[in-house]
Every structure is written in C-alpha cells, then in structure tokens.
C-alpha cells in the first residue's frame, strides 16, 4: 500500500484553483520562509539546505548544498534557474511555474540570499507561454510586496530576477548550453571539465544553476528546518518529490510522494495514484526517470522510488517521470520514437551523437516500417557501443554532454528485453501490431 504520511512540500496549494494568485499565496504562508531566512546569516541558510541534503531535482541528483559550496568566491556571481523542462514525459516544472509561481520566486530569493548573489535569471521553456506570464506576474507581485528589488523586507539584501524565455531546444536543459542560450548564442554545451559553471559560468563568472523544483523546496526547508526535511525519505533520498506518471495507466498525473517510501507498483496501481493499467492490462515495461533512462520490466515493480534504489537497477530516477507501457505497446515503435527525438534534438557538435543518432533512427525506422534485416540488431548494438562504449550504467561518454550517452538507453533496453519482437518485425517486414 502506498504511503501518504508526508506533508506536501512543493505542491501544497494544488487543491486551490487560484493557486497562482498572490492572494492565495499570502493566505497560505507565502514569504514566511523568506522572512525567516532574512533573519539568519546567509551561511546558516546554506547550512540548513546542507542538513536537508536536498538532492537536485533536475535529473542528475547532485546535492544542492554541495553545488552551492563549490561556488568560487568572486565579487560578481550569478544564480540561474533551469526551467527548460524538456525531458520527454517530465511535467513537474510545468506545474510549478504555472500553478505555484510565487513559491518559485520565494525559493529563488532564499537561494540568492544564501549565496549572496544579487542577480538571478529564471530560464523558462519558451513553449510555456502561460508559465512565462505567470512567473512574470509573480515577480511583479513580489516587487510590489517588497519581497524583491532593493532592500528586501528591510534586510539590506537586494535581488533582481529576470525571466528569460527559451525558444525550443531540448539541449538547453543542459546547464552549460543553457548558459550559452542566456548569453544569446546557439545552445551548444561547453566542454567541461576542467571548468564547471561554479568556476566559470555566465559571462565567465561563477554561476550556480539549479532546477525549478529544487528552488521550490527551499521555503519549506527554511520554515521547518533542514532536519525535518532530512527526516523524510530514506537514506540519500530525502524529502518528497514530484513524480510524473504517464503512459498506459488509468489515472496519469503528477504526485508528490515521500522519497523511497513507495514503489513503482504503488504509484502505478494505487487507486489514489495511477489506478492501474488501462483495460486491466499488464505492465510490459516502464521507463523509470525520463527517456534517457534504461527501461525496467514487471520484475522490477517493487523497486522503491529512491535515488540509490533505482540506481542499483542500472538505470536512474532521473527527472522522476515514469512512462508505463502495456501489452498493446510495440517496443520497437516506442524505442524508434525516442531515438527520433534524440536525433532531432542533438545539437550537432559531436560526431558520435550527431551521426549516431541519425543512423540509429533510420535503422529503427526501417525495422518498424518495413525493410529491416536480422543483422540490424547487431548493427544497432554496435552503433550504441560506439556512442557509449561498453553500454554500462552510468554510461561512458564520448561526447561533450550527456545527450549522446543517453541515446542508446531505449534501444539497448528494447533489444535486451524484447529481442523476439525485433525478429517479428523483420520476418513480418514491418510492425506486426499495425
């Protein structure tokens, strides 16, 4: 049975239709976390986040406190919020910017205070037209309330936040690519190491890049203390997390659950959550954390929704988005569509990714639509091995960023789990499901 004992930390206002308004925000504890933070030393605020051991919610799961402590000390530094949510099947940040924009602004202000940064940018996906408007409105509201601008709540601390619209590029979710886009250039990821954004980031200055959901956790952490946050969850997976459930389930949606306390079976089948498979079907496979993650099968349903627990299965919890496939789903078609996505979104800097994704997509296309050959399976595995040598997890990287090494996940998963289906596609000269 699913566990629902944890409080809602980032989606506490989800029951209200007017959760995006200042009135509702103020009536439900708005700016309390910020007011408290401003009475503390900046280091003490950072220490609370360290105590909370809040893992970054963007996908890589790096501890936010540690990322902050790596910020090189310099007279000018920047805070950049990553809201370029484009990992297929991920829609948590979409909710947070559209439905609880003031909470985001409060969280960003707390982070900026802890880091003593006076300029922050929120990079939002361009396709979130309403989200962009709501966040801009929330910034306007915060200015009016004295919660933003110069001398915030009389504390002497000043901050300006600028909303920066993206323009449709998956790669801009990669932090150095996002910085390039913020500098007004093509979104090409930068080579790192040696210099990560914490040393050389926006305009060559030290920069912290954090995810929207990471920021949304901060007001609660400051109000209730890092220890209360760390008491939730299990092991390294502390607090709660927004899980996005989609695919062949009766009740797809976004659920805030305590980390590592529930399993994939709980979220897919619990009547209050996923509500089971459409037409009482069976789980054929599921993607545990965005399409960059290798797939899991029915035997893995009892894996807890925690960072290390999923990591132990040679895949990742990633962005917390779960896609469920049932027996009506064609594994070849699913893997082909995901590969087509990567092929389209490769920025084109590195040969293995640019060329490899296109080759893989064309081979998957002919398997799905006719013209596939038996030797295509070996060819696919060989190409995947060229992009991510050894095909292990976490994958070896042959490219500047991790988009390249994410490409093989769906193809190798589909071949390893459903090899017979590939054979059927070859003998049937196309998809037998059509």
């Amino acid at each position, binding site marked *: 049975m699913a566990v629902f004992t944890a409080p809602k930390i980032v989606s506490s206002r989800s029951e209200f239709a007017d959760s995006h308004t200042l009135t509702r925000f103020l009536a439900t504890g708005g700016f309390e976390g910020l007011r408290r933070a401003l009475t503390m030393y900046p280091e003490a605020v950072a220490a609370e986040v360290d105590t909370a051991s809040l893992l970054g919610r963007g996908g890589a799961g790096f501890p936010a406190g540690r990322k902050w402590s790596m910020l090189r000390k310099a007279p000018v530094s920047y805070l950049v919020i990553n809201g370029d949510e484009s990992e*297929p099947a991920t829609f948590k*940040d979409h909710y947070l910017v559209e439905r609880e924009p003031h909470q985001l602004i409060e969280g960003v202000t707390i982070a900026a205070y802890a880091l*003593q940064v*006076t300029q922050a940018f929120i990079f939002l996906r361009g396709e979130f037209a*309403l989200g962009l408007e709501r966040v801009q409105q929330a*910034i306007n509201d915060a200015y009016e309330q004295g919660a933003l601008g110069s001398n915030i709540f009389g504390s002497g601390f000043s901050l300006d936040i600028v909303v920066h619209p993206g323009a449709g590029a998956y790669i801009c979710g990669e932090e150095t690519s996002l910085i390039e886009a913020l500098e007004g250039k093509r979104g090409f990821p930068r080579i790192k190491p040696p210099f990560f954004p914490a040393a050389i980031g926006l305009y060559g200055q030290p920069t912290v890049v954090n995810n929207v959901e990471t920021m949304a956790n901060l007001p609660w952490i400051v109000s209730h203390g890092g220890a209360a946050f760390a008491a939730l969850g299990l092991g390294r997976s502390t607090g709660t997390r927004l899980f996005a459930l989609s695919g062949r389930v009766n009740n797809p949606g976004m659920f805030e659950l305590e980390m590592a306390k529930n399993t994939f079976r709980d979220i897919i089948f619990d009547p209050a959550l996923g509500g089971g498979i459409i037409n009482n079907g069976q789980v054929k496979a599921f993607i545990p954390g965005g399409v960059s993650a290798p797939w899991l099968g029915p035997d893995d349903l009892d894996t807890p929704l925690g960072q290390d627990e999923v990591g132990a299965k040679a895949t990742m919890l990633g962005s917390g988005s779960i896609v469920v496939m049932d027996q009506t789903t064609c594994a070849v078609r699913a893997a082909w569509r995901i590969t087509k996505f990567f092929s389209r979104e490769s920025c084109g800097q590195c040969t293995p990714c640019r060329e490899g994704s296109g080759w893989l997509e064309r081979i998957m296309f002919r398997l799905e639509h006719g013209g596939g050959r038996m030797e295509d399976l070996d060819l696919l595995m060989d190409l995947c091995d060229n992009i991510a040598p050894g095909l292990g997890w976490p994958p070896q990287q042959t490219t500047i960023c991790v988009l390249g090494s994410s490409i093989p996940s769906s193809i190798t998963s589909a071949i390893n789990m459903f090899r017979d289906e590939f054979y059927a596609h070859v003998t049937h000269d196309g998809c037998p499901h059509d």
Partner: protein
Amino acid sequence: MTYFRQDIRLRAQEVVALYPQKRSAMLPLLHLAQEHDGYLTPEGMAEVAELTGTSPAEVRGTASFYDMFHLEPVGTYVVGVCTNIACLLAGGQEMLDHAASTLGCAVGSTSADGMFTLEETECLADCNIAPCVQVNHRFVRTTTPDALDALVDDLRNGRRDEEIPAHGTLIRVRRSGGLRAPADQVANERAVAHRAREERAAQEKK
C-alpha cells in the same frame, strides 16, 4: 527611423536594459520580432542585431538553432501536436493525422488561407493530458479528434482570440517592478556582505 513599431521598440529597449550584456537579450528580442511580424523577417532580425550589438548574420545563425523561431511565414495559428513517447501511447500519431485532415495542410506546412500551420512537436511537458496539443504555445487540452475539430472551428470564428493571441505573441504580462537596484547600492551591499562574511570566518577561527 526604426523598423519595429514604437511600442515593440520600447519593450525591446526595456528588455536589453535587464541584462548585464546586450547580447543576452537575443532570444527575448527574437520573440518580440516574431510578435511584430508573425515570423522572423530580415528587417526584424536586422533590428535585433542593432539592439544586441551583433550582426544580422549572427542573429540569423542563432535563431536557426531554435525550433520556435520561424524564418519563413507561418499561419496565424501554429498548431503543435506531440507524438513523443507519452503521447504516442495515447494516440498522438493518430491525432496528428487527424489534425492534418481537419486543417487541410500536411505536417510542416501552412493551410492555403494562411490561417494554420501544423507541426509535429517533441514533448511539451503536459503528458498527463495526452495527446498534447498546443496552439501558439498555449496548452489547449483537446485530447479527442472531436474536441480538436471544435477548437479549430472556434479559432476560425475568432472565439478564442482573448486566450490565444496570433502567432508570435508570447508573454503578455509586462514587467512592472523596478528594473534593478542602483548599481552603487548593489556594490555597497555586496561589499558589506563580503566584509561580514570575512569577519564571521575570522571569529569562527578564534
């Protein structure tokens, strides 16, 4: 003389002032250029180049990287249908085919009356209401063919103008807060914070 209308020109200058470096305003200004013309015209891009201190070639080179920027004219309504994994499992491909027949244009093209452009998009981050459809980057949440047809009818008759402005208009909320604290004040606060941090560090050492 500028190419942009006065109101767009004014907003463009406001945007440039928000950033420490002018070139950072590139993407927001290109969105404004699209609001001005519906797509990116050579004149619009030249004005963005002037505003950002770059060349028209650099502006075009940057714009061509991003899916949302159109270098050719598009319809008043750009209809995007997602066929990525979550939508694929909910009939996204069938929805895209249906949209093509309703709108009377193939994927990637514009209807003869210039009203609609149809695009196959990647994931739009609304996967629990699948298949996902956007019109001019606004979520319309039509998940059945009938609902899509009703929406298209509404759009043709201008019944959704309030909610879905013509293509190019992205952010209708103007920034109203002070642009930023005065530079000398920020520098002063930063120096005070820096000193305080060092004093605390020194005290902790003792």
